[in-house]
């Protein structure tokens, strides 16, 4: 009989790494699959800000695959993911994270991939009781069922606490050499990592994506409210990760670069947004989302001046460029700091 093949959901975190290693050790051929939803926590997005940070700028999923010596297929699911996030059947977690629907979706995509590529089963790093929403004793079966993977979905880290799956029943894998991890403690994982000699792995705190982040979720909801429409493009959700976001009036939002790396990144969006920058002194690049009227435009210019190096000068010149690339200059007084209402910050 030819070697059995498993496709493993690789998030870049420790759990999926351990689950994969456990199955590799049983002589199964494993390849990794990783889904890009647009919300994934990427080392590089942080790197936009601090280019010289000490942490390596690596893609953790690629790094994990390389450590394990397996192939990795990264799948762009940005478009399909919208319906998961916008209409989750099982609702959201603590923030805008639709974890249960998200997991079901990812396993379903892995199932499609498995069938197209002649693989036999799917593995994930899920652990009973590890996460409040998607990894509960009662929700793990929901993922298996709604994804359509059913008993072709094996969770090596907690398999001994679950009914035997097809790969176990068929003897492709030895159930005795799977694990019985449960709960929020990370100790069993640490021990297993040590046994495998794995070091330097990533340990994401909240979850695998920005949707578990409170301030990110607030910005996303603000975007929907302001546009009166729950929708987004990839550019929108990328920009939510960057800069200082201020909404001084309901009709427009300002994205203010906080430092060189962010300004440079935002330069790529100058054709899609009206933007501002100070010309009489160095200052940030500011993208304007929405349609400010003339008065609001002046307010935006004063705020832009406030975040420039000319903040203490009486007058600062600010160039305003519209989407067609037509520029003009305004001369304004920087807005005093106390006039920037705390609730403008999103």
């Amino acid at each position, binding site marked *: 009989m030819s070697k059995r093949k498993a496709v493993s959901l690789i998030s870049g975190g420790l759990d999926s790494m351990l689950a994969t290693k456990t199955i590799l050790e049983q002589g199964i051929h494993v390849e990794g699959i990783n889904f*890009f939803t647009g919300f*994934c926590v*990427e*080392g*590089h*997005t942080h*790197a936009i800000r601090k*280019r010289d940070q000490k942490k*390596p*700028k*690596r*893609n953790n*999923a*690629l*790094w994990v*695959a*390389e450590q394990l010596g*397996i*192939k*990795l*297929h*990264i*799948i*762009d699911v940005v478009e399909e993911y919208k319906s998961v996030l916008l209409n989750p059947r099982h609702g959201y977690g603590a923030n805008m994270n639709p974890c249960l629907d998200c997991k079901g979706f990812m396993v379903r995509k892995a199932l499609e991939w498995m069938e197209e590529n002649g693989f036999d089963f799917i593995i994930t790093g899920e652990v009973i009781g590890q996460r409040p929403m998607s990894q509960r004793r009662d929700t793990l079966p929901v993922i298996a069922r709604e994804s359509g993977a059913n008993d072709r979905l094996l969770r090596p880290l907690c398999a001994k606490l679950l009914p035997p799956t097809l790969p176990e029943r068929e003897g492709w894998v030895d159930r005795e050499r799977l694990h019985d991890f449960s709960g929020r403690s990370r100790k069993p994982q640490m021990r297993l990592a040590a046994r495998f000699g794995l070091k330097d792995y990533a340990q994401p705190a909240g979850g695998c994506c920005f949707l578990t982040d409170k301030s990110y979720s607030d910005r996303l909801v603000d975007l929907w409210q302001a546009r009166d429409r729950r929708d987004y493009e990839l550019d929108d959700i*990328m920009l939510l990760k960057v800069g200082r976001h201020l909404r001084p009036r309901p009709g427009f939002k300002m994205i203010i670069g906080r430092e060189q790396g962010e300004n440079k990144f935002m330069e*790529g969006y100058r054709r899609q947004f009206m933007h501002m920058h100070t010309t009489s002194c160095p200052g940030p690049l500011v993208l304007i989302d929405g349609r400010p009227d003339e008065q609001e435009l002046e307010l935006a210019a004063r705020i832009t001046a406030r975040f420039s190096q000319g903040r203490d000068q009486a007058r600062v010149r600010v160039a305003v460029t519209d989407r067609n690339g037509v520029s003009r200059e305004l001369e304004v007084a920087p807005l005093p700091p106390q006039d920037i209402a705390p609730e403008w910050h999103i």
Partner: protein
Amino acid sequence: MSEHRLDARRLLCPMPVIRTQDRIKDLAPGDILEVICTDPGASNDIPAWCRINGHSLLSCHERDGEIVLRIEVGGD
């Protein structure tokens, strides 16, 4: 053996990797793909992706703020 080009400028990681991967699917072993990108992360990720999946990175350098990678497609 043929030469191909992929413009992945302005895309953020991991999109340049995904585009590279999807493009290479349609190429034959020995073909050369030149990828141009602007996200500095790509200069780590694309080489890592090549190592994992058995393609050879011929060169990776910066040219006018853009990163140019040349990849030789490997056999399966």
